[in-house]
């Protein structure tokens, strides 16, 4: 009885570790750190100087936004690539042919990427303090940690959605890459969401991250639970919808491909 109850948890953690280790074990420490921090750091510098040129006088706004995007992109890419790579390596059919429950197997893909993204974002904030003199004197640390975790978890829902696309297309990561670039505009990373045209503001609040990033910015200014709870609740709700949608989409595509026998042919 206990064994059967614990089985999904064991599966979840085993899948989480195997998936993460399998993708990153061959990477050298330099490659690992560069992939985690290198690209976001230089992208952030690029946006900072772009902002400086056009007269955007608050570079720290860009710094904070880009650091907060790190856990989100880690979750999204991690999950999407973990599913996409199964296709690439020819192991997807074995997983889908096994009797293991899908929920722990595929949800487990996100676990270490969420942790990894969280740790990387914390390192990013330390670097931001050192290089950009980010003022943390008023920070509500507990709320900031909560927001970073939340952003990493809710964005994994997008990872599952794009991972589902990877089931039917070999170009899932390209779609995600394109979508991720849209996040530079939509979720308040480089400038306030209010600067967007009204239609795009509506789109922005229909996505995970927007409220989470806003709440994290407030936590950096010392805001407590009572101030950010609405934003956090909204982020949880939107994130849960995307995670559920991702999982349902995954199951639907899996069922259809099983029926037609076309999983690896597409």
């Amino acid at each position, binding site marked *: 009885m206990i064994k059967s109850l614990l089985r999904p948890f064991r599966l979840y953690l085993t899948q989480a570790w195997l998936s993460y280790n399998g993708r990153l074990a061959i990477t050298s420490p330099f490659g690992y750190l560069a992939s985690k921090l290198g*690209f976001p750091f*230089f992208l952030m510098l690029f946006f900072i100087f*772009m902002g400086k040129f*056009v007269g*955007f006088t608050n570079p720290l706004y860009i710094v904070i936004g880009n650091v907060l995007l790190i856990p989100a992109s880690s979750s999204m890419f991690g999950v999407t690539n973990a599913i996409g790579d199964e296709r690439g390596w020819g192991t997807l059919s074995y997983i889908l042919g096994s009797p293991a429950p899908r929920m722990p197997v595929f949800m487990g893909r996100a676990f270490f990427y969420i942790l990894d993204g969280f740790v990387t974002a914390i390192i990013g904030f330390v670097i931001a303090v050192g290089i950009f003199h980010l003022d943390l004197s008023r920070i509500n640390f507990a709320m900031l940690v909560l927001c970073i975790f939340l952003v990493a978890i809710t964005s994994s829902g997008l990872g599952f959605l794009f991972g589902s696309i990877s089931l039917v297309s070999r170009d899932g990561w390209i779609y995600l890459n*394109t979508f991720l670039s849209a996040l530079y505009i939509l979720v308040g990373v480089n*400038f306030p969401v209010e600067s*967007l045209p009204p239609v795009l503001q509506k789109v922005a609040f229909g996505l995970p991250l927007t409220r989470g990033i806003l709440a994290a910015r407030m936590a950096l200014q010392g805001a407590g639970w009572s101030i950010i709870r609405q934003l956090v609740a909204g982020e949880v709700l939107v994130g849960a919808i995307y995670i559920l949608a991702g999982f349902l989409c995954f199951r639907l595509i899996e069922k259809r491909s099983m029926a037609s026998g076309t999983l690896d042919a597409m």
Partner: protein
Amino acid sequence: MKDIRWGLIKQQMLVQLHVRTLNLLSLGLFVIQPAVFTAVGMLLSHAAGNAMPDLVYTVIGGGIMGMWSGLVFSSTYDITGDRLYGTLELIVGSPTSLTTIEAIRTLTNVLAGVSSLGLAFLAALAIFGYSLKGINFWGAIVSLLLLLFAMWCIGIFLANFLAWSRLSGGFVDYIEMPIAFLCGFMYPIRVLPGWLQILSGAIPIRWALQAMNESLLGNHDWSFLVIHWAITIGISLVFIAITRCLQDKVHDSIRVSGELSSI
């Protein structure tokens, strides 16, 4: 001229276009990514209270960004793809050198990237009302040609790292943003701190791009442009020389030790 193998060039370019260049990834790199960067620039400008974005740096600069991203990814994935499909050994073992193949492929990638710049230019003209009045037309054309040449040289230089070692793939991928940031793809180089401007001086793209942007902004100072062009050519040739020197050594080593697959 007799030594130039036009048939080889035509065939390689066609294969490159069909297999690597005209695909979904290129659409993202040449069209969507530049559009996103341009949008970020425009919205930052809007957030800063400007009525109109700077068309040369923000809109046309987005096209430069697309050209560069397209070049970096397509040129590096050429070798990665050959490794994956098992054709790298055949190319290295064939009488036509890998350098020649890479040079033609990179040229195709650079020329395909012009579409990104062209689209950005059209957007600046048609959507934002960019005026060609007062620009230094010939200065801009020569600078563009030298920019393509500089990108080609850097493209070959980077592409060969992948033949030298598969682990360098990651390193080459991370070159995209640092070069874009150092060369001022979407802002003038003067925005960077002095020490970064000195650092960026080692990259030929920076000089050609600066000359092109100045020409588009109406700079008719030919001595300024000629100096920038000369520096572009000089540094580009240095990159070519380094590439050839390293390549000869590595290729000799590969042939002697037979270790192409394991490095």
